[in-house]
């Protein structure tokens, strides 16, 4: 199934990447080629075959719930782009209205 330039633009929006028009022109045909190639997996008769998400087979692995040393607030905030009042400072997340 081919993928169009509009679909790539939609996927970029979903992925929160502000692609330029030039990038869309370049990426869309490449993605179409890649998707056509990987679609080969559909040739495989896999009726009744269980999916594998993970090779080890481990499930529900927990550590003991014990307090132990961790990062200080200063360490945790040390790499933040912006900090205010010992918190991560972020751009506004709601509209004006």
């Amino acid at each position, binding site marked *: 199934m081919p993928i169009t330039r509009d679909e790539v633009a939609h*996927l970029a929006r979903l992925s*929160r990447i502000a692609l330029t028009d030039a990038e869309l022109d370049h990426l869309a045909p490449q993605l179409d080629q890649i998707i056509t190639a990987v679609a080969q997996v559909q040739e495989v008769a896999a009726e009744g075959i269980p999916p594998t998400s993970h090779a080890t087979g481990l499930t529900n692995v927990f550590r003991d719930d014990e307090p132990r040393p961790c*990062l200080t607030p200063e360490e945790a905030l040390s790499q933040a782009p912006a900090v205010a009042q010992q918190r991560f400072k972020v751009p*506004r997340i709601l509209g004006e209205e």
Partner: protein
Amino acid sequence: MTAAELSAALAKSEVSATEVTQAHLDRIAAVDDRVHAFLHIAADSALAQAAEVDKRRKTGEQLAPLAGVPVAVKDVFTTKNMPTTCGSHILDGWHPPYDATITQRLKQAGAIILGKTNMDEFAMGSSTENSAFGPSRNPWDLDKVPGGSSGGSAAAVAAYEAPLAIGTDTGGSIRQPAAVCGIVGTKPTYGGSSRYGVVAFASSLDTPGPFGRTVLDAALLHEAISGHDPMDSTSIDAPVPPVVAAAREADVSGMRIGVVTDLSGDGYQPGVLSRFAEAVEVLESLGAKVTEVSCPHFRYALPAYYLIAPSEASSNLARFDAMRYGLRVGDDGSRDAEEVMALTREVGFGAEVKRRIILGTHALSSGYYDAYYGKAQKVRTLIIRDFDAAFGQVDVLVSPATPTTAFRLGERADDPMAMYLADLCTIPSDLAGNAAISVPCGLAAEDGLPVGLQVMAPALADDRLYRVAAAAEAAFTHRWGQPLLTSAKGLAS
């Protein structure tokens, strides 16, 4: 000198850790402007670590085998007080506040961390050309790629800038660069080496592992970094396979070795196939029982991988949101968080990362999930069944490590499908989570560049890799009269 020889000389105090470290820093200063294996050289902290090892040794303390032996670390591992970029502008200037488990284990073993090595951005690539900081070069021929994504680590070891290096393998990112740089590289069993503090690409595949110039050196590093880690929920709680002992034994007599017939033919360079055939003959002459084995679903491994890995990446890389760490672009008060996020990711990510995030988002989106990601997961099951059937008949499988030798810089840079083929032989073991190694088996006649022999073993039977690779290495070195790397002439002039 090999890491094993350095370890012995250090233990006998014939040489100090400070001298060894300084010698490697000098080598880096002399050649790294041409190789560009390193993104960050940690000279001061390396010398401080070395002085500490020397001090402890003087007090008569028994130190671990790698104490005082330098190691280069791929820039995907978090390192306290050192930058970690993952080859990306989005993490430019990030100094992680904690050490990865593997970083901690190296420090505890007294290994000297020389610096951080170059890589394809977020480990996505097979050439280091996707690094935001420029490619590394192959010490055999500086116009050729060193492979990837752990190309900086492989180039550093091949250029004698470090005796050992750490990388990660998701689709072949240790074995492929090891093969094209003429050194040894291992992908341990998935879950055998901790992912805690490894910037995640595809969590069900990412596996840290060692590079060395010899099989024994790789085994020493493999053993030092392996073992259960409660900080990684996918870490396997089992004893570390006896890889060092196996590398020393180097005995394949009576071993059953299966040649994977599906990993040859069209698309394989003739010089790679002839060296591989020769390697199989050598193993047979050493007493191994060689048979042919078919793994019919391996041909679907590459397409399944390019659905599974990008799907996981599209989710993992959502954490680079410009809010808590890393780059933030366009926060001028006029834009909301979502716009800042999209602008930052546009500026911070390179082309390949964007391609894979969009591909993964597509494969996971409703309406396409069953046809792409769901189907790829079923193919993964079929590949595991192929391995299970094969390992019912033989102890290890062998194939070429790569379809071709090192390619020219720029040759595949804007042709994603051509680039992806570099991992054709390595991907099956990643999908199955078992163990595999690449060991040099000679030079291709056409171009005089190294060829890697891949050995694959069942999960937690990593020691078999070292037994076979060490036997092949000994036989080849005897035949060549010297280690293969002696022939690398890229830095000769």
